[in-house]
């Protein structure tokens, strides 16, 4: 449908055989790319060519390709997901680039996100953060009615804003200090606004934020690069809420 012609691009891609390999940049030419293709489809084209030549294709994470699963990553031209507002890499279209552009593609860089291969990083540290408190404790049994607990619309909206986090890790990748504060705070905020999550509010903040320090994520210095990079536009408000809970929990903790 596009009136624009296809384009040729030069890619500087981080290649790394394994966790232990030092890794380095390799230059590739992406030829005949349509402006309607997504960034991942552009990489698919490059990989098809590499496979045809018998070379190892570029490894990158992806799954739903519709911006909701949080699997895609890529630090594109110095910003996570390319740095476009509210956009994941899979939803980033090639019309944002011009014919002849050079594009640098790197993996997320953080100590708790070790590179596994090429552009794929191990994000299981995020799973451990959720295990530390990103849940509500409930008894099993029949599913309760959806409307059994009335929640004011405004509170539900605040919880939903935080719940839109897809856990991609762009906040960590964008942070000058590799801090996971926006991710952790989104999980804390999502539950603290709901009656089901209120009971464990203080313990949750204490445990999750302590876990983040232990995992080796950096400390927040209020740059708000995370907020700008977040493909789901999670606001900085959630972090202030998490600090509040943490301060309260620390001051009044008994165990």
């Amino acid at each position: 449908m596009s009136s624009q012609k296809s384009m040729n691009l030069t890619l500087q891609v981080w290649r790394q055989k394994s966790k232990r390999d030092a890794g380095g940049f390799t230059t590739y030419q992406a030829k005949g790319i349509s402006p309607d293709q997504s960034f991942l489809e552009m990489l698919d084209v490059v990989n098809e060519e590499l496979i045809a030549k018998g070379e190892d294709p570029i490894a990158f994470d992806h799954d739903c390709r519709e911006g909701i699963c949080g699997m895609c990553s890529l630090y594109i031209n110095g910003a996570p997901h390319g740095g476009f507002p509210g956009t994941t890499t899979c939803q980033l279209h090639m019309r944002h680039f011009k014919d002849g552009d050079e594009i640098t593609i790197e993996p997320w860089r953080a100590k708790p996100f070790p590179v596994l291969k090429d552009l794929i990083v191990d994000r299981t540290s995020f799973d451990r953060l959720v295990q530390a408190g990103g849940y509500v404790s409930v008894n099993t049994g029949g599913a309760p009615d959806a409307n059994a607990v009335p929640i004011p619309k405004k509170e539900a909206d605040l919880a939903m804003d935080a719940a839109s986090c897809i856990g991609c890790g762009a906040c960590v990748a964008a942070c000058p200090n590799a801090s996971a504060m926006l991710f952790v705070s989104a999980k804390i905020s999502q539950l603290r606004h709901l009656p089901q999550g209120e009971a464990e509010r203080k313990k949750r903040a204490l445990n999750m934020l302590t876990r983040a320090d232990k995992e080796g994520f950096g400390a927040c210095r209020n740059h708000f690069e995370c907020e700008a990079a977040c493909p789901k536009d999670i606001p900085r408000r959630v972090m202030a809420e998490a600090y509040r809970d943490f301060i309260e929990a620390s001051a009044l903790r008994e165990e």
Partner: protein
Amino acid sequence: MSEGERVVRGALPFSRLVGGFVMSSVGAKVIMALTGVVLWLFLIGHLVGNLQIFQVPDAINSYAVFLHTLGHGAALWAVRASLLACLFAHVGMGLRLAALNRAARPVAYAKTRRLRTSPAALWMAASGVLLFVFLVFHLNHFTTGMFDPASFGLKDAEGRQDVYRMVRIAFSNPGLVVVYVVAQLFVFSHLLHGTASVWQSIGVNHPVWTPVLSGMGRSLALLIFLGNIAIPVIILIVGGRP
């Protein structure tokens, strides 16, 4: 005895209660914010007191005597001790966080594009360290008098330390004026981020109040900068030695 009651009775020892908070990254952030506010308030008081240099010589000389004799001299040392404690907590936490943050990204990006932060925020650690170096010089200049003992020891007609002439002589030296003005740039840069971000650090974020408070903080940072450079610059221009 209920489970909850058992927990309260077997509560954490003080060291673990406080230690856990101090060693956490959020706790460090809160401590930096609160000690930063104390140091910021001191800067305002320091500037207001120092602006008396533009009055008759008696004003600042008797102000100095007032500070040194308040509460039989105890008040001055109480304030100095509190400020030093805040300063060391602030610097200590800052250096610890800077080291942790450096360790959190062992492999740097080849290319980085900042989307929202400011140079003042990115240079926080550097401006802080430079500011500390200046502070050591400044204390040796006007508080201990080691840098220029001759003008530090000057007495006025009433036998008091002649602060007025000491400052005038110091800022008749263009080299010293440059040092002080450049140092104020670091102070301004440091305050520009610090005063705006302090609220977020202590968990205060409000759609209306946060921008207002941050704006007020930045305006105060600018006023402190202008007031502080006014002293050396105006003295240099109108002539140092009266």
